[in-house]
């Protein structure tokens, strides 16, 4: 092989390497070899002469630094490469040579380079950000030892699995454990290495000053060992501490230990009081540990009251580490057998349809966010694919424009391989720049996108642009370069020097190989954009409907304050009522407060209770219904603007112990007493049909959405706020102006009333309603933005193709015009060419979008996945955009001057 460099290294001194590289980099290709050679020749002569004056190396550097590169490049432009005598270039351009010539070539076409780099930067940037979210939430392992073996264990409730209420169905599918079931499974199973149960708890911690609500988790001794994380200090709870009568112990989270004990290393062994119960601190967990979700303060053992609960009180979740090589089916089979046995041993029948469910811990943690994120990831991949197609197309077209140059280079002996590597190098430079800029963009956009994340998304604190994400982006960039670079390279491989030089670029790219590929690319782009646009259209349509849902109550100008009433301080109804009256008086005295009401659960406040309601039928039957339950005070409906449809609201007289009254929602009235007026009817409450508390219905109110706008109101039963059993009360505060400004004063009113009462939540109700829209908003905004980007790229693709076709057909059009064709007809003909691509793309897109839309089904509200109007709108939009994108460049055909064109021929 003869190369640009002789095989035998020349003798004697050579100019400084850095200077030579710089020179080679800065010189235009046409003059590079000659000038490099001239300078080297003169350098050697100076070195050989050893004359006085500057050293040859210094001299060489001065020459390199003082050459007038800009002028040389300007003059070299358009200069044909000189014919070389009997010498071919290397068949394979060396990487550094290929890269530097790629840079030079792109410097000559800044507009192309800018469009390509920006397209890639945006696509790679947004892909990186979305991937970082997916990686943090879905892909990163949980912070436990060998997390794949960890499962959540539930019971199932056969009867409620078919309930019309989605919440009840979800509850039935993951029904909690009772303490006896937990003990039975723990002691008799052979499938788990570790097994433990846990239950949420809330404790009031009042070391000094303001009381604090501590979110704690009751855990049995098996829970923390099953997770496989060792404590940072001390030990974990022992099996003996699960026994009746064992003294309560607590393990602190790292955060709680730092915050409350200043990281005191001698904290183990000390005693801490929650709700006036002393707990011995036995350990501290490391900072990275959390369970079951981030932000929990402490883990405490169960107390005797909880351990004594019967088999019909289900209140615990369970976690287990499955033995190696035991599959889920085996686990379920064994646990279901034990379930029946435990019930049998206690002389109680196994309830109908009771079963067992085992689910990986990660699936449990991630929950319903998974679907949204996967759809998002798919959308981003599609956008990247379109960007890839566009870049390939742009490079291809620019390659065609340079076909003549390539043909000349081929004729001069540049092998196909050399051309291909050269073109690939150009693509690699562009994609590399795009990727780098994209990652930079990702760093800038990361924070704003995270702020858009709905609050319900788990593990958001694990989202970061870490090494995994950056490696992903790098891989993505390389793959993009390969995909986008293959088309121009394909073109180069098709170069026929004689053909290229003779014909110029006039009639190329139409029907032949590379041209067909290019048309197919644009069709694919339109199809992909169509799919994304239908997705975005469906989500936007659904979000718009969701936004227009009337939740059934007035939520602006209402604040909610949840106050805990520790049983130790407020043991009975009188003490609670006295506190509530006093607090109500103080809040009402705050300027701007127009009303105060109490409830057990604020709508959209995050908690909901439900239970059974029984209705007497004339036939002696006693059908059972599942209803939502709330206790409310007299002013509740007025404050929230919930209209009374029949009967009356609660009055102070309803609070007297002898009275047993209820108010039902319209939905409940229709379900419980179809076709009848419910006022005056009786409804039974309780879990045992033999021992019900009968309430007389005194009023009917309209339906209210309690948990989200997307979920239809569930039949609801209201009872008067008696303050008998409640351990906390939600105070709803109506404000004349901004409710958030009143919250601070209301907090102070609580502490003025009793400084040892903790405030659990304080919120503006409209914020909570707004938050319930966060996930739909998140996916609508993000997928909408992606769809818009894809649409824009596809339009650019169509426009670019038509513009290029027009530029190629100028002579043909000139002839046609000269022969009397009407300009308008020519414009129409050219437009039709582009529109045909859009039409084909739309058709294919429609075929893909119809099944793909099914993936969105669960995220849609008020419309089906095959919403005809949305599909028609997107078809119309894409075809219109395709027509406009074709017409715009096609107009140029009408302005062709036939005389000039024919002269040029």
């Amino acid at each position: 092989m003869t190369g640009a460099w002789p095989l035998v290294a020349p003798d004697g001194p050579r100019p400084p390497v850095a200077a030579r590289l710089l020179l080679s980099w800065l010189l235009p290709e046409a003059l590079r070899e000659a000038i490099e050679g001239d300078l080297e020749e003169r350098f050697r002569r100076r070195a050989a002469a050893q004359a006085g004056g500057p050293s040859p190396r210094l001299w060489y550097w001065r020459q390199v630094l003082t050459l007038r590169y800009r002028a040389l490049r300007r003059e070299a432009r358009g200069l044909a490469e000189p014919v070389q005598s009997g010498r071919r270039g290397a068949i394979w351009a060396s990487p550094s040579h290929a890269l530097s010539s790629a840079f030079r070539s792109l410097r000559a076409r800044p507009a192309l380079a800018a469009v390509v780099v920006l397209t890639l930067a945006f696509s790679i940037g947004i892909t990186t950000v979305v991937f970082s979210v997916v990686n943090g939430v879905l892909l990163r392992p949980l912070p436990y030892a060998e997390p794949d073996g960890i499962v959540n264990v539930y019971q199932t409730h056969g009867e409620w699995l078919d309930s019309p209420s989605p919440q009840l169905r979800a509850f039935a599918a993951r029904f909690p454990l009772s303490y006896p079931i937990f003990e039975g499974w723990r002691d008799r199973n052979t499938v788990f290495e570790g097994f433990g149960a846990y239950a949420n708890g809330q404790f009031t911690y009042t070391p000094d000053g303001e009381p604090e609500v501590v979110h704690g988790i009751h855990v049995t001794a098996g829970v923390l060992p099953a997770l496989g994380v060792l404590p940072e200090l001390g030990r974990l709870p022992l099996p003996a501490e699960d026994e009746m009568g064992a003294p309560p112990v607590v393990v602190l989270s790292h955060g709680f230990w730092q915050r409350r004990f200043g990281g005191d290393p001698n904290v183990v062994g000390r005693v801490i009081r929650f709700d006036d119960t002393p707990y011995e601190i036995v350990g501290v967990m490391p900072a990275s540990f959390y369970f079951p979700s981030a932000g929990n303060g402490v883990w405490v053992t169960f107390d005797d009251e909880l351990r004594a609960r019967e088999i019909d009180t289900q209140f615990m979740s369970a976690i287990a580490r499955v033995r190696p090589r035991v599959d889920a089916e085996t686990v379920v089979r064994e646990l279901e057998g034990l379930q029946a046995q435990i019930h049998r041993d206690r002389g109680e029948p196994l309830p109908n349809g009771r079963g067992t469910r085992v689910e990986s811990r990660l699936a449990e943690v991630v929950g319903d966010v998974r679907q949204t994120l996967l759809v998002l990831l798919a959308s981003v991949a599609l956008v990247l694919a379109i960007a890839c197609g566009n870049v390939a197309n742009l490079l291809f077209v620019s390659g065609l424009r340079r076909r003549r140059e390539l043909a000349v280079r081929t004729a001069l002996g540049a092998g196909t391989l050399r051309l291909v590597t050269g073109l690939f190098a150009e693509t690699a430079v562009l994609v590399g720049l795009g990727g780098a800029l994209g990652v930079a963009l990702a760093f800038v956009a990361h924070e704003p996108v995270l702020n858009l994340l709905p609050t319900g998304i788990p593990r958001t604190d694990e989202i970061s642009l870490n090494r995994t994400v950056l490696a992903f982006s790098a891989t993505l960039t390389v793959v993009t370069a390969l995909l986008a670079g293959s088309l121009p390279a394909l073109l180069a491989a098709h170069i026929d020097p004689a053909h290229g030089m003779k014909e110029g670029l006039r009639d190329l790219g139409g029907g032949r190989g590379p041209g067909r590929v290019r048309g197919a690319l644009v069709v694919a782009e339109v199809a992909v954009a169509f799919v994304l646009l239908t997705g975005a259209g469906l989500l936007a349509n659904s979000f718009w409907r969701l936004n227009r849902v009337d939740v059934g109550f007035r939520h602006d100008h209402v604040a909610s304050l949840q106050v805990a009433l520790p049983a130790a301080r407020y043991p009975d109804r009188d003490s609670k009522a006295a506190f509530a009256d006093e607090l109500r008086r103080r809040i009402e005295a705050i300027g701007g407060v127009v009303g105060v009401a109490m409830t057990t659960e604020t709508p959209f406040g995050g908690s909901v209770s439900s239970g059974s309601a029984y209705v007497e039928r004339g036939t002696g039957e006693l059908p059972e219904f599942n209803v939502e339950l709330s206790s409310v005070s007299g002013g509740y409906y007025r404050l929230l603007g919930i209209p009374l449809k029949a009967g009356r609201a609660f009055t102070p007289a309803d609070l007297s112990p002898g009275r047993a009254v209820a108010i039902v929602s319209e939905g409940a009235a229709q379900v419980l007493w179809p076709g009848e007026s419910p006022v005056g009817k009786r409804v039974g409450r309780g879990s045992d049909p033999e021992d019900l508390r009968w309430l007389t219905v005194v009023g009917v109110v309209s339906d209210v959405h309690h948990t989200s706008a997307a979920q239809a109101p569930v039949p609801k039963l209201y009872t008067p706020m008696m303050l008998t059993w409640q351990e906390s009360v939600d105070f709803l505060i109506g404000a004349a102006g901004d409710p958030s400004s009143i919250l601070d004063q209301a907090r102070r009113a609580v502490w003025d009333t009793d400084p040892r009462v903790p405030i659990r939540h304080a919120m503006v109700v409209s914020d909570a309603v707004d938050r319930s829209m966060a996930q739909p908003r998140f996916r609508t905004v993000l997928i909408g933005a992606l769809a818009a980007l894809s649409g824009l790229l596809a339009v650019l693709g169509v426009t670019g193709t038509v513009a290029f076709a027009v530029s190629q057909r100028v002579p043909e059009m000139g002839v046609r015009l000269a022969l009397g064709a009407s300009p308008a007809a020519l414009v129409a003909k050219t437009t039709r060419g582009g529109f045909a691509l859009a039409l084909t793309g739309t058709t294919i897109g429609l075929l893909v979008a119809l099944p793909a839309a099914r993936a969105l089904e669960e995220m849609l509200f008020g419309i089906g996945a095959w919403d005809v109007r949305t599909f028609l709108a997107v078809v119309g939009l894409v075809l219109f955009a395709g027509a406009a994108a074709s017409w715009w460049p096609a107009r140029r055909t009408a302005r062709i001057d036939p005389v000039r064109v024919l002269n040029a021929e």
Partner: protein
Amino acid sequence: MSSSKEPPNSTRDRLGEFEQLALLSVLQLGNDAYGGQILEQLEARAERSASLSSVYITLTRLEKKGLVSSRMGQPTEERGGKAKRFFRVEPSGIEALQESRDRLIRMWTGLEGVLDRSVATRGA
């Protein structure tokens, strides 16, 4: 190429002084005119200090005008494996040089005495 694009019988740009010197150097060097030698020729015969940049800028411009042509030689060892770019003056280049010379001669005609005198005055 597209010679049709050039308007026929255009008044071709007149050669600048350095262009004339460069063309003359190439002619002086015969078949072996390449960058480094042209530079030396300029320095030696025209006593004119020039740079490699100016030589290539000028000759490239003239090549695009069709006044000179170039070809690449064989790579040689003492040039670090690089070939020389040999320049040759084309007939149109000779024509342009002749035009320049004729123009100068026309302008010189009748002025020899004046210039001699001024030289004499300065010398006195």
